[in-house]
Each structure stands twice: as C-alpha cells, then as structure tokens.
C-alpha cells in the first residue's frame, strides 16, 4: 500500500467517525436557535471540561507548541503551563458568573452579555467587533496547521491547502447540522484522540531515541542550554505569559460561549479544578517531543521546526503509526476551528443582524448556519498564505483579545463600572496593540514601554487603569 493511501485510509476513518458523532448529536437535539448556539444549556460537568480543553488546545498545541519547545527548550513549558493551569481560576471567577447571567437573561453570545449588563449597545458592538477581528487570524492558524501535517505525512503528496479544504468541509457538515451540540460531542472524540495520540507519539519517539534517560543524557551533553531558563527567557517574560493565559483564554469567543452551555454551575466548578489537574502532565508531551527533536535534527529553520512532531514520527515510527498519531493534530485543528466558526457566526447573527433588523428566531437560526459556511471560506482564504510561523500569527490575536479582559471583569465584579470608560479602555488598548505591532515591524517596541515584559502586560495594565479612573470620574460627575 502506498504511503498516500495509508494516510488517506486513516484520515477517512477519522473523518467518518467525526461525521457519525456529529450526526448522532444532531439527531438528539432540536432545530432551535438556543440548541444551535448553546446546546439548550444542558452539558454535564465532565463533558464540559472535555469540550473546554479540546476547544482551547488547538493545532498550535500539537504543532506550534512542539516547534517552540524545539527552539527554546524546556523553558517553553514554563511559559505555557502554570498560566494555562490558572485558566481554571478564570473558569470559576468568570465562567460561573457568565453562566448564571446567561441562564437568567437568555444570553447566547459574549457581546449580548456585555450589552445587557452595561446597557450600552455601542460597547456590545465594539466588544463583538474586537472578537471577530482577532479571531479570524487565529482561525487561519487551524487549517494552516492541518496543511502542515498532511504535507509532512505524504512528503508533499497531498497539497496542504487542499487537505485543509477537505477537513474544513467535513467540519462544516456536522456544524451545519447540529451546531454547538455537534461541536461539543465531536470535541469528546477529538479531544480523546488528541490526548491519546500525543502520548503515543511521546512513547514511540522516546523509544526510538533510546528511552527518557538516554535522551536526557544526550541532550544535556549536546544542548545543555535547552534545560535552562537563564539565557533563554527572563522572569519578566515568564510572568507575562503566566498572567496572559488566564486573562486571554476566557476572552476567546469559542471559550466564552461555552460558559453558557453548562447544565449547572457545578459543571463549571468541576472544570475549574480539573484544568490544573490535567494541564501539567498534558503539556509535558509536546515539550518532550520538541526538545528531543534537537538530537536528530539540530539545524531546523524556524518554520520547519513547527513540523518537528511529524518529522520525528516519520523517523521513528512506521508510516501507518505516524499517520494515526498525526490524526491527533487534525483532531486538534477541527475541535478548535468548529467552535470558532460557531462562536463568530453567533456573534454576527445575534449581535449584528438581529440587533439592527426584525429577524425572527427561526430566521436567525437559518442565518447562523449560512454564516458558518461563509466564515469557513474566509478562514481558508487567510490560511492560504499565512504571514509568519504559527506562534507569531496567533500572538497578534492574543494581545488584541486580552484587551477585553478588564472590561469583562469590571462588568461582572465592580458596581462602579461605566460603559463609556469600558469603550475608552478597549479603544486605547487596541490602539496600543496596533502601535506595538507596527513598532515591532520597525525598530522594535521601546524598552520604556515594556520594561522587559511581554507587550500585552503594559497594554492590559493601561486599559485597566483607564477603565477604573474613567469609571470613578464619570461616577462622580453623575452624582453631582
């Protein structure tokens, strides 16, 4: 059997499984707006945790994560792990309030909650616009990652872009049918595959390289800097990422929307402590693979290193096993991309179309499904020629979305919050995001601004200060 046929056989099985799960979920649901966008708010604790994790861990987890670990070494674990574990705290402190408000007032999208709780349609639109603008480039990462996998596995036999079109097509079918319900249940299949196959990859590659002890010894001799934080990363950057993840992850519209789907707040409480229980061990896998890649392939360029997992598998595993394991990356791509499509479709349907027209619920349901198709095409178009490596593409979106964090927290937790101050906070933050992006392209972001931290930190800090000071000043004005 030719290599391409083996990959196609594995791929066909996986895609058929996803379609079957998606179809079954659709059959169990109802053709209503509430079921399409929030699965009738009936998702149980363990399923909720699985869908949150599968949605959060994207193609970047399978590919970019190992690629960055290849380049930076073990310090990349430090940049990602503790901050991602702190997402559990965000699930609790943001997720539970969002769930309660959503259930009490019928919110289906993030901007609906912002509009409803602030009383400002302008703030809701601004919030929604930021979500859509910064999720589109993030969405482009997913098919790009899938394309890398297929090209590596078939040695260029399957063009990456056409493979991405195929995967997106399958995803569209089950999302078109069952919306959030299909997304959640396919997440279970995809998340399970992603986890199981990533661990298989570690075991296969480690065995191929001579075992953990041998790999460690060889690496320590040849690349001792890969074990050390000193020289690789500063404590300021380390702290920046630790704080960034719990702030930005709940701002992803696909994660925020999932806070609405819980059957009870117990589901969110369970997901909150399960997150830091699973993440520490799960994150070891891609880091181990990436760092170990330096032994066999010490001179990979930055873009090539994003394919270090398929490269290692092709070196140390039979093709059928490599194809099977890399199906996990495809699962990671689909579990995140379908949720992003659905979240963005819901925003455009509910917060734009329904707020300026008299659309009935069944018309919104129909529009939401068509928007999923349109957004998938836009995502593929962006993925056709992404501007830089995976990590750089995504990093622009992270800071842009994190600017929404102060507004979200303030509306839930602070009674003095004023919508005008929230608007000023978001506009200032996004202006600074644009400025730092342009500065980075030119001579670099000035040190006086970052003070050694990731640029997102001063941007979020200034956004929060403007929100607090503005709310207090406006509050005083309204009292006099």
């Amino acid at each position, binding site marked *: 059997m030719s290599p391409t046929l083996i990959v196609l056989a594995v791929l066909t099985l996986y895609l058929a499984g996803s379609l079957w799960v998606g179809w079954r979920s659709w059959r169990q649901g109802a053709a209503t707006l509430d079921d399409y966008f929030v699965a009738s708010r009936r998702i149980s604790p363990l399923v909720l945790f699985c869908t949150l994790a599968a949605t959060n861990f994207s193609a970047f987890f399978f590919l970019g994560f190992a690629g960055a670990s290849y380049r930076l070494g073990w310090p990349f674990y430090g940049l990602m792990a*503790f901050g991602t574990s702190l997402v559990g705290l965000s699930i609790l402190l943001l997720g539970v309030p969002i769930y309660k408000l959503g259930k009490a007032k019928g919110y289906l999208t993030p901007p609906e909650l912002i509009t409803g709780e602030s009383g400002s349609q302008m703030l809701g639109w601004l919030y929604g616009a930021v979500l859509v603008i910064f999720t589109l480039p993030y969405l482009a990462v997913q098919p790009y990652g899938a394309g890398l996998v297929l090209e590596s596995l078939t040695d260029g036999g399957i063009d990456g872009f056409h493979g991405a079109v195929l995967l997106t097509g399958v995803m569209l079918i089950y999302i078109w049918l069952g919306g959030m319900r299909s997304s959640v249940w396919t997440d279970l299949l995809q998340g399970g595959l992603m986890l199981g196959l990533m661990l298989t990859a570690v075991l296969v590659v480690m065995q191929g390289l001579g075992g953990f002890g041998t790999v*460690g010894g060889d690496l320590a001799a040849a690349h001792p800097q890969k074990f050390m*934080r000193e020289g690789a990363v500063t404590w300021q950057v380390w702290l920046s990422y630790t704080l960034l993840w719990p702030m930005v992850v709940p701002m992803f519209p696909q994660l925020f929307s999932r806070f609405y789907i819980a059957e009870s707040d117990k589901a969110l409480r369970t997901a909150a402590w399960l997150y830091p229980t699973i993440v520490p061990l799960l994150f070891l896998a891609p880091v181990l693979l990436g760092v170990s890649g330096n032994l066999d392939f010490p001179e990979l360029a930055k873009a090539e290193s994003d394919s270090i997992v398929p490269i290692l598998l092709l070196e140390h595993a039979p093709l059928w096993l490599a194809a099977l394991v890399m199906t996990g990356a495809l699962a990671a791509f689909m579990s995140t991309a379908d949720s992003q499509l659905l979240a963005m479709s819901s925003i455009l349907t509910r917060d734009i179309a329904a707020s300026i027209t008299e659309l009935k619920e069944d018309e919104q349901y129909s529009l939401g499904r068509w928007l999923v198709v349109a957004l998938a095409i836009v995502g593929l178009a962006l993925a056709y020629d992404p501007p830089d490596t995976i990590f750089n593409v995504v990093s622009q979106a992270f800071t842009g979305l994190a600017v929404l964090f102060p507004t979200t927290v303030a509306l839930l937790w602070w009674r003095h919050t004023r919508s005008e101050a929230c608007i000023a906070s978001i506009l200032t933050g996004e202006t600074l995001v644009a400025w730092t992006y342009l500065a980075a392209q030119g001579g670099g972001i000035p040190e006086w601004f970052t003070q050694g931290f990731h640029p997102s930190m001063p941007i979020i800090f200034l956004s929060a200060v403007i929100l607090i000071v503005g709310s207090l000043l406006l509050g005083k004005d309204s009292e006099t």
Partner: protein
Amino acid sequence: MTGTERELRPFRLPSLRWTGIFVLLTLLSLDIWAWDSKAVIGGWLPVWVFHLLVLQFVLAFALWRFTQEWKP
C-alpha cells in the same frame, strides 16, 4: 427584571484569604531564586519543571477547596 436578576451582579469573593493564596502560588511559580538551576531529575526532567508540576497540583487542590466555599 426580577429581584434575583438584579442581585446577580456584582459577584463577590468569600474572603481575601483566597486572593492571597492564588497570588502566592503565582509568585512561587516564578521560582526566581533558582533561575539559573541546571539540576535534573532522572537524567531528563529539570528540577524547576518538577517544582512547577507540584505547584500546579497544589493549585488544583486549592481550586477544588475554593469551589466548596465560593457559591455566588
């Protein structure tokens, strides 16, 4: 709007103790006093990674306890 809906916001933490615990765990994760550590466990796992692993499990336990106490 019902009284219950009006009372939903703003949400409140049960006590400042929990804020202190989560801030302390975050600061401990920096591990700045052993930043230049080269020690490894079992020949492959850096000690500072093991330190982070332990802290994350402590965080999980703290969150579990917190969920028992905080019920808005």
